[in-house]
């Protein structure tokens, strides 16, 4: 079952900040007047940009100092973006995106997540590995599906060795 979702407004500053964080300075991510940006219909977003929706996710578990009323939410293994990469033993194992339609600055995306498969594996150094998948859809203000993101988290029984 998908959750009820939340809104993620795509703002020019956020796209610029995210592009910088992955060391990307191409003009299509920041300069609306650059000919390259005009050629793609306005500012577009880097391939992993939708991770920023974490800022707008009301119960996002990996931001312990976010001001909120009441205690921070308990970590859920299938949290979007966190991909089960929770506190302590959780790690992000895989991330997959399908790109259906471009995301532009000014869009308001609706973000819905549902749990996917769960499975278990024996770790190479012993101990069980518990994998869980979550599938998140990002739809724009016209209801058009822009990105489908599948995150796989793994919980380990001990810290992963180097």
């Amino acid at each position, binding site marked *: 079952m998908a959750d009820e979702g939340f809104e993620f407004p795509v703002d020019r500053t*956020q796209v610029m*900040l*995210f592009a*910088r*964080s*992955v*060391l*990307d300075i*191409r003009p*299509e*991510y920041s300069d609306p007047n650059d000919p390259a940006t005009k050629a*793609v219909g306005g500012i*577009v977003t*880097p*391939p*992993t940009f939708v*991770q*920023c*929706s*974490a*800022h707008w996710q009301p119960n*996002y578990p*990996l*931001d*312990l*100092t*976010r001001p909120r009323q009441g205690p921070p939410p308990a970590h859920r293994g299938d949290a979007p*973006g*966190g991909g089960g*990469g*929770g*506190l*302590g*033993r959780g*790690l*992000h*194992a*895989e*991330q*997959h*995106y*399908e*790109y259906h339609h*471009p995301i532009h600055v000014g869009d308001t995306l609706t973000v819905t997540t549902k749990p996917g498969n769960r499975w278990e594996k024996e770790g190479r150094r012993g101990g069980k590995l518990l994998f869980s998948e979550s599938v998140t859809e990002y739809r724009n203000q016209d209801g058009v599906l822009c990105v489908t993101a*599948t995150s796989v988290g793994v919980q380990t029984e*001990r*810290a*992963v060795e*180097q």
Partner: protein
Amino acid sequence: MALKVGDTREQVVIENVNRSHIVKYAGASGDFNPLHHDEGAAQKMAGYPSVFAHGMLSMGLTGRMLTDWLGPTALKKFGVRFTKQVWPGDTLTAKGEVTKVENGLATIKVVTTNQNGESVVEGEAVAQA
């Protein structure tokens, strides 16, 4: 773009990862898992030697190799497994190789390695050929 089987791209996507890179990614993405910025938490909570970079930072940097190569609107799919952690001091090189072209779509094998040649990210992308 006229991609064909065997086409490759290789690019150093980050040199000498430091804690400023990691906290910048945390701030931009919103992922404030203390394992990535709180040395004490990384050591005490989970037994790691230090903080390490978000897997999604490595994926984002790898994505930059793809968009530098193919442009910002060519990707149809991009998926990876995180195969090894990225630590402060690491330098990452992302490589792509076209393995199939069919119906106007190119399948690209993607691997990003650290300075020791160990892969940190492995996966596949599909792009307009």
